[in-house]
């Protein structure tokens, strides 16, 4: 009986203490693997970095090494650049499209911030004839309102042959959505509409079928779905209270993969009622996930690998603390990650796409490098893209001062760097910006020629080929 009474006391006490401890729940956010990916092994013809992965040091600038540029399993095929730009002459998106006649075109926005391209005689969205990739030809400029200042919203539907954007800037611009038909002759886009249907612009998304354009703003909860099925008569379908930076739409148009603002991280939205054109469509939040080194989620692109579903997500810039907003060379760098969404209600981070320059323990050493300290530049991530949504072998990421970085993602849990191209740094004639690279753009791919196209805000448009059979 004595032991019975003792057990009763112990049981009551444990019950009480268990309740006490139960108030503390553990972290529910899965954590990425952490750390930089393995460095690329550079083959013949490369002119690689000699120091830290991703670094362009002051010594390299002073010695002239940075002016040579850095290559690793890449070669420059062609370019359309401004050698001593005053402002910024490359932007945030590069798109590729081949029209019904077989003409091959590139489109890119020509500034990081309108109108900082004006003094370099650049404006709007450049339309490039890519018949000869070694010699990209500017055939026209798109100068309608959204094309003049699309910020990060330029987007193309391969399926529909539609190019669209919304007027945007870092804060607020009235959301004029421009829609072009590029299907007949990609070299001569035909303006179909320019209408105030985007609320507040900044980033965007486009359903692959080209029927629904999403105007997104990470600073205001004003995500808008615009019906552009009849490009001459765009109309708003839905406005939702979501802070959205870039968003990608699933192939069937039923899911939006959102790089979300307001601390939400990556978010999956059910937009099937918009896609189905249900009257008064409702949008449902399926899941969201954050991560300890989150800065500003920029974009999230879905893909499948061996039957499993993933998104490639990239954060922009650096911060002093997780989710703390941008900082000048902060210790926290979001960079890229692969998230398993096979169970879309439970996204799980499976790996990170990061360089040594993004690691907290290396930040102090590189703080004095040109471009490192500017909050809107720096050693950090900005955009990634993949050549296909089905079993992509590579991902290419614009990592600002570190240039274009290419990763092997065949094993999504163990990405590794396989190549890079960091353009030659020429001196600035005018001291408005520091001379250092500013690779900010979402790249495009010409897989049949193993080419990646991207822009650097500092110098312009580049066509880069991967060599040594790394792709």
């Amino acid at each position, binding site marked *: 009986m004595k032991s019975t*009474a003792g057990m009763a006391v112990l049981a009551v006490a444990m019950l009480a203490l268990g309740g006490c401890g139960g108030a503390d729940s553990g972290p529910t956010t899965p954590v990425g693997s952490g750390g930089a990916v393995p460095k690329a092994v550079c083959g013949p013809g490369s002119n690689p970095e000699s120091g830290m992965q991703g670094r362009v040091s002051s010594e390299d600038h002073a010695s002239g090494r940075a002016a040579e540029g850095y290559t690793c399993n890449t070669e420059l095929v062609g370019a359309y650049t401004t050698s001593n730009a005053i402002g910024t002459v490359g932007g945030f998106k590069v798109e590729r499209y081949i029209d019904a006649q077989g003409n091959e075109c590139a489109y890119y926005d020509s500034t990081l911030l309108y109108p900082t391209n004006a003094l370099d005689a650049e404006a709007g969205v450049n339309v490039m004839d890519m018949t000869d990739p070694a010699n990209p030809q500017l055939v026209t400029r798109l100068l309608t309102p959204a094309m003049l200042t699309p910020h990060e919203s330029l987007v193309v539907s391969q399926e529909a042959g539609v190019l669209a954007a919304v007027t945007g800037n870092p804060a607020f611009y009235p959301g004029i959505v421009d829609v072009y038909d590029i299907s007949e002759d990609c070299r001569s886009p035909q303006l179909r509409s320019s209408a105030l249907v985007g609320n507040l612009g900044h980033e965007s998304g486009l359903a692959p079928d080209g029927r629904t354009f999403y105007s997104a703003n990470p600073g205001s909860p004003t995500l808008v779905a615009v019906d552009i099925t009849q490009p001459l008569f765009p109309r708003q379908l839905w406005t939702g209270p979501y802070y959205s930076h870039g968003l990608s739409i699933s192939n069937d148009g039923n899911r939006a993969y959102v790089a979300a603002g307001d601390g939400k991280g990556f978010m999956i939205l059910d937009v099937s009622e918009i896609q189905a054109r249900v009257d008064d469509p409702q949008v449902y939040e399926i899941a969201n996930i954050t991560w300890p080194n989150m800065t500003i989620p920029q974009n999230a692109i879905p893909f499948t690998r061996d039957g499993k579903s993933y998104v490639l997500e990239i954060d922009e810039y650096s*911060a*002093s603390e997780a989710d703390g*907003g941008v*900082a000048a060379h902060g210790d926290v760098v979001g960079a890229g990650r692969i998230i398993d969404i096979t169970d879309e209600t439970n996204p799980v981070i499976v790996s990170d796409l990061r360089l040594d320059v993004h690691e907290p323990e290396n930040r102090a050493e590189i703080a004095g490098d040109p471009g490192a300290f500017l909050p*809107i530049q720096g050693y950090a991530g900005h955009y990634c893209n993949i050549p296909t949504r089905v079993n992509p072998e590579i991902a290419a990421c614009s990592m600002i001062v570190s240039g274009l970085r290419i990763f092997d993602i065949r094993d999504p849990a163990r990405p590794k760097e396989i190549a890079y191209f960091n353009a030659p740094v020429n001196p600035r004639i005018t001291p*408005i910006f520091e001379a250092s690279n500013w690779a900010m753009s979402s790249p495009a791919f010409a897989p049949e020629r193993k080419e990646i196209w991207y822009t650097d805000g500092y110098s312009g448009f580049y066509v880069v080929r991967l060599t040594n059979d790394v792709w």
Partner: protein
Amino acid sequence: MTAARQVFVALVVALLLVVATVAALQYRTLHVTRARLAAVAPSAVDVGFAQFMSLHHQQAVVMAQLMRDDESSAVANLAQSIIGAQLLELGEMRGWLRLWNKPFFPESRAMSWMLLGDDPPSQALAQYLLDCEASPTGMPGLATDQQLNRLRSLQGLARSRLFLELMLAHHEGGIPMARFAAKNARIHAVRRVASNIVLEQTKEVAGIRVMLHAIRLVPSSD
């Protein structure tokens, strides 16, 4: 001791344990509640930032409103953008101050709240505070009444140019304050707004510099 007495003692002990546990839980809840309240209670940095940046933003909005119809569409767009962004931030800051029962604007020009960071003041911060003391407006870059009146009196390119020069100085004077608060404010929402101001105004500074460069290339008529 009889079995009944043993059970009685055990029950009394159990009851005491339950009472003690409930008391401990209540104490813990009180502790957690106090900690949560402390986490949302503003520090001197939070209040100082909200008050001084409100003052700073108010002048930027006033200046920008003068330029909404500027002949240069780039300047008019910039002005509109500044008005939109800064009015929103001003509203947030005033909302905090109202909740904290604090005045919308500082009661003195003393920037001593910027000495309350986690780290000792850097050389750059010390210089900034000296510049604040030396400035006729209390903050470097804040335009004087004479400068604002001159802006009102000018026209054309000269007006655009003075606006860009004043706004450049205004942003460059405000960014160190925002950077300090982004690191040292206690409340997460305050740090977020402060770092967003750093981002937004750094971009605008880049654009203003290019626009000023363009204007300087035009032969002056004044």
